[in-house]
């Protein structure tokens, strides 16, 4: 309850800061929307040259990509922890975080939020509607709720993997180089996993479960019944990985060495 209130306080403050620089704000929104539009066209162009891969049609692949963009955008808006090591450990900002009566990770989420990323949700949904209409998909009354649940699951998967990597910073000095690599691996979740060999598929399902951000949940909306089990595992995997990552984070905080001044 208190955390929800705090969240809105911070979000309001964030908007206010943005609004004080009015021209910046307008330019930023326009450029964000433009870049999302470019993204959209780019996706159509890239996939325009493919037809069928491992039993997936072009529109289906576009649909999966569109779904992927939604949890990815939410992740981008709230989990900007890719520079956690430099910003909080090396510069010692973690000291300040730890002197406040709120969970340390939640404070970092609040401090680092970037709400503009949420525009990606619009693009994602637009892509899904575009692909969906070409596939003649129908929407049942409960589909929006399932959508929210699966998106949340996917977001948690993404978040937990990055929280886990950030937690390494508490023990070791140099996990930064892993971060960009993770962003790359994350992109594999956008494509149907059965196009990869079984080792990579296993990796993307159980070790770095990026497949739960894109292809598995999207399969539900595409009516691929043989994938339903995986689709509905999405929130479970999300929750399990998230709890595990929080556990590791909390363990890491006790190992925090502080920055020497």
């Amino acid at each position, binding site marked *: 309850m208190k955390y929800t209130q*705090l969240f809105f306080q911070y979000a309001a*403050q964030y908007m206010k800061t943005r609004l004080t620089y009015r021209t910046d704000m307008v330019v930023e929104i326009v450029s964000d929307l433009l870049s999302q539009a470019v993204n959209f066209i780019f996706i159509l162009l890239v996939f325009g040259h493919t037809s069928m891969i491992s039993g997936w049609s072009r529109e289906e692949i576009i649909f999966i990509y569109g779904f992927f963009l939604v949890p990815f955008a939410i992740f981008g808006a709230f989990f900007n922890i890719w520079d956690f090591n430099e910003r909080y450990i090396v510069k010692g*900002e973690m000291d300040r975080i730890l*002197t406040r009566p709120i969970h340390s990770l939640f404070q970092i989420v609040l401090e680092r939020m970037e709400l503009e990323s949420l525009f990606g949700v619009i693009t994602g949904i637009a892509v899904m509607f575009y692909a969906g209409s070409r596939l003649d998909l129908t929407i049942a009354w409960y589909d929006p709720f399932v959508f929210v649940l699966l998106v949340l699951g996917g977001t948690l998967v993404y978040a937990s993997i990055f929280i886990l990597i950030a937690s390494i910073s508490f023990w070791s000095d140099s996990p930064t180089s892993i971060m960009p690599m993770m962003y790359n691996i994350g992109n594999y979740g956008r494509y149907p996993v059965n196009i990869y060999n079984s080792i990579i598929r296993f990796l993307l399902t159980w070790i770095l479960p990026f497949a739960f951000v894109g292809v598995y949940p999207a399969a539900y909306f595409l009516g691929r019944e043989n994938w339903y089990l995986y689709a509905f595992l999405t929130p479970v995997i999300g929750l399990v990985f998230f709890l595990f990552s929080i556990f590791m984070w909390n363990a890491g905080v006790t190992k925090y060495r502080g920055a020497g001044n």
Partner: protein
Amino acid sequence: MEKIIEVKELRKEFKSHSSRSGLKGAFRDLLTRNYKVIPAVNDISFSVKRGEMVGYIGENGAGKSTSIKMLTGILTPTSGAVRVNGMDPHKEREQFVRSIGVVFGQRSQLWWDIAVQESFRLLKKVYNVPDEVYHDHMSHVIDSLDIGPLLDKPVRKLSLGQRMRCELAAALLHNPPLLFLDEPTIGLDVLVKLKIREFLKEMNARYNTTILLTTHDLSDIEALCERVVMLDEGKIIYDGGLSSLRSNWGEGKQIEFQFADTAVTKETLQPLLAEMEAAWTPGGRPNVWIANVLNEEQVISEVIGRVVAAHKITDLKVHEISIEDIIRNIYEEGVKNG
């Protein structure tokens, strides 16, 4: 009186690897690393009572910051027991930090881009301070620190002195019974320093706030603290009153002579102080010599009389030995005469 801080055998070790020399050494480092365990804080024990203002001093690397960070719940101790405000700072961190205020002089608590009052508003939410309590307490704090006109300015536009006063107000927003100040006056001008000292005294008198202060500026300690805890290489080397520090080590006086005649040397002055417990040291400027003597009327007048009779002087000053000198002496000689 109840104890606010209780520390027993507190220890914090850091592991650091020492690299071997040369390229061959670097390859060997890849395989097996040499770790050295360095105790930054080495089994210290002390306690602080409610309402005390304690100066926590030591050279860089003496273990001040590390021990303060353990007291504030930022670092986990390697061994030993800490109870602060009746809680274990690290284990009950979120509950515990509500009962303390922290100011790190080199690090800002405030949000860089937003107005000071917005920062206060967010912190008020973070600490869950009720409206009435907030207005009551903060209007007083804002008045005494004289930061009213700064409230609608973003932090990045404030000068260091202005920012520091706002930091202090932010740390006291939830009116904590215990305040940790790490170098609160670093880089500040004299007027701001005085204002901050006045304010801290007032908080201590009004709310009986306990204050633990680390600083390199010993005049802060002299102005505020009755007690000092001195650290060296992770150990406490002195814990006691500031006044007894002066009476134990600062017994003497220094008489500074500026001579008119340029040919004065230690050799010509030495015979003047024969059979007295006194010594000459150079005064740092040409023709200035300092006689270090016992703090007794007879001795002082005798020394001045003899010197003035033998040489022409242009200036004369009598100093009490400063706390800074005393502390330097302690670090150089250890605590053997304590």
